[in-house]
């Protein structure tokens, strides 16, 4: 595992170590973690992977992203089903932590129920002692490769347009009004055969790459489709829309309400505001009516914060309608 001081995976990790725990934990806020492991799959077949994390997490298996979690809940869940051959498979996990503590767990199910993968015997840690060197080499090759491709493409595009301009000049009729530049209407030298062949080859290669990209993207999108019905009940915005349906009848249609929560993620306020508009939602608790959203309602009921509010209604899912006590 490698941990990073910022919620990004750039640069040198702040720490690298082996872990045998059944969950990955980040105690430091605004940090990130990257974990590698080799999963020894005992039997060929279909496996159901179940990832849970707080805050954001990714799961890559054999280089392909299988689960990507970006939800705003304190517990984000994702499931992927994959067909695997018996043998070793590269597992890479990313965890991005915002405020508070972050964690990640991973379960695998091959028809016998979920069992934790992390900390289990099926997972072999990878020796990361040389990983940074290898990653630097790969990054370097990527830069050189991209730079060379960009330069080569620019030259070929230029040649292609020269060829096309010359072709149109040689094909256009003498009396045809043309809006191309005066230089081409006077005629240019015909391009050599080899340039024509290079540019044609370039365009063929580009079209083939384009089709491959479209096919790859199309396939990725189709595979990402949730199994639920539209508009995807687990989409964070849909989750908040449904969750706040209960409280809406008790709120005024317009004006301002306050908002308090034990969850520090500012995105939660934005989601609530989006769901409740045109009602304005303010983190300032000066408004008389206040919406409370708590991951652990029991903690809120015991906190001194409750001295400032009267609970008007408890919606039983961490959602409260509160009234500010006027002192």
């Amino acid at each position, binding site marked *: 595992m490698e941990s990073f001081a910022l919620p990004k995976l750039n640069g040198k990790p702040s720490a690298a170590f082996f872990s045998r725990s059944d969950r990955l934990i980040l105690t430091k806020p605004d940090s990130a973690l990257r974990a590698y492991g080799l999963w020894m799959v005992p039997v060929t077949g279909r496996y159901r992977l179940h990832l849970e994390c707080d805050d954001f997490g990714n799961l890559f298996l054999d280089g392909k992203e299988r689960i990507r979690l970006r939800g705003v809940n304190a517990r984000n869940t994702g499931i992927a089903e994959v067909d695997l051959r018996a043998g070793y498979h590269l597992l890479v996990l990313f965890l991005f932590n915002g405020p508070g503590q972050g964690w990640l767990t991973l379960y695998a199910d091959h028809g016998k129920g979920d069992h934790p993968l992390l900390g289990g015997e099926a997972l072999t840690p990878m020796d990361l002692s040389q990983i940074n060197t290898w990653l630097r080499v790969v*990054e370097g090759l990527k*830069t050189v490769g*991209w*730079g060379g491709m960009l330069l080569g493409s620019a030259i070929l595009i230029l040649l*292609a*347009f020269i060829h*096309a*301009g010359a*072709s*149109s000049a040689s*094909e*256009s*009729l003498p009396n*045809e*009004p*043309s*809006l*191309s530049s005066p230089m081409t209407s006077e005629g240019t030298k015909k391009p050599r055969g080899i340039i024509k062949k290079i540019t044609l080859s370039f*365009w063929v290669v*580009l*079209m083939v*790459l*384009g*089709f491959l*990209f*479209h096919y790859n*993207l*199309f396939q990725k*999108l*189709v595979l*990402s*489709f949730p199994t639920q019905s*539209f*508009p*995807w009940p687990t*989409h964070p*915005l849909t989750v908040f829309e449904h969750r706040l349906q209960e409280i809406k009848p008790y709120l005024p249609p*317009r004006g*301002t309400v306050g908002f308090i929560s034990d969850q520090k993620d*500012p995105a939660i*306020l*934005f989601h609530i*505001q*989006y769901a409740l*508009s*045109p009602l*304005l*939602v*303010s983190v300032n608790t000066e408004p008389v009516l206040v919406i409370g959203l708590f991951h652990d309602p029991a903690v809120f009921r015991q906190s001194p914060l409750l001295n400032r509010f009267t609970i008007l209604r408890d919606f039983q899912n961490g959602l409260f309608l509160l009234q500010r006590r006027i002192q």
Partner: protein
Amino acid sequence: MISLLAAYLIPWLIGSALTGFLFPVCTSASVLLLRSALALGVGFGMTSSVLFLWLLGVGEVTAGFFLLESMLGFLSLLALLFQKHRLPADPPSWSPPVSNRTMEKKFRVGFFLFLLSGSAIMVLVSLLSPHGDWDAWAIWNNRARFLFRSGPDWKASFSPLLNWSHPDYPLLLPLSIARIWFYLGRESLWVPAVTAMLFSVSVTVLLVSSLSLLRNKTQGYWGGIILLITPSFLTHGVSQFADLPLAFFFLAVLVVLHCSENLQSCRSRLLILSGLLAGFSAWTKNEGLLFVVVFLLIRSLTLFSRTKGKESWKSMIFTLAGLLPVLALVFAFKFYLAPPNDLLSLLRTDRVLTHLTDPGRYFLVLKYFFT
């Protein structure tokens, strides 16, 4: 269904009539395609401006607004029919340069195949993110919801409590979405997605038709193919951000300016159209305001360096004639409704100067640009 049709048809009619008047050339399919692509952006710009003025004057959307738009749509239809039947004495002709027919056919097939698969991909991306990406729901669709749901209290959309959603951003996109919701009588997740797709397709058609006219058809199809295989265009184009409409207006201004250089007989009208499109870019996003400043600066430099005296001033006046009405709308919004920009309000002159003169920051940008 009829209300949805009217909601999209009226802007297109208004845009087509105005574009037809300001771009009175129709001698080839490429020109007609170019005008159609421009019509969508002009139409959305005009109808969002009308809705804004209506809200400022009347205070909420009433039956009178729909009557007004229907009248504008009807007048535009009449104008289109009138333009079609009344031929000018000496119609400006514009035939695109001829390219190799065989190559053109091959690339045309390739382009349409990419357009088909690209459209399918855009539909899938829209289905997967029905609310759009972060900025789409946090800024643009959020504003549209406020405008639609607030009724007479629509000015609450610009409350400082919503600073995180940039309430100072101009309103072309939110008003266009809210306008269609008003026609439907309810909100629909499809409206922002369809609007985003229409702008994406319009950018593609605009690029292909303009390259076909200004170079040749083969190059037009090449340009379209390169755009359709650009990864971020397909995925970001339907993210429901305002970036695609902004890119549309930027491209449209450059295309129309280029056309004005080559069609002297209707140059003045095309300059008005270029000014109008530049104004709509400022009505779409704050970056459009910067574009307007740069556009006017470069335009002045090129005009006054190439031609002197009356001709240059005349060209600038025609450009400003198209730009100023929309710019007046933008400034009215900025000065009377929008709160200060949350990003700019944190800036101080000394801090800006320090950042501008720090070479390390430029190096950092270059480093991340190439890695």
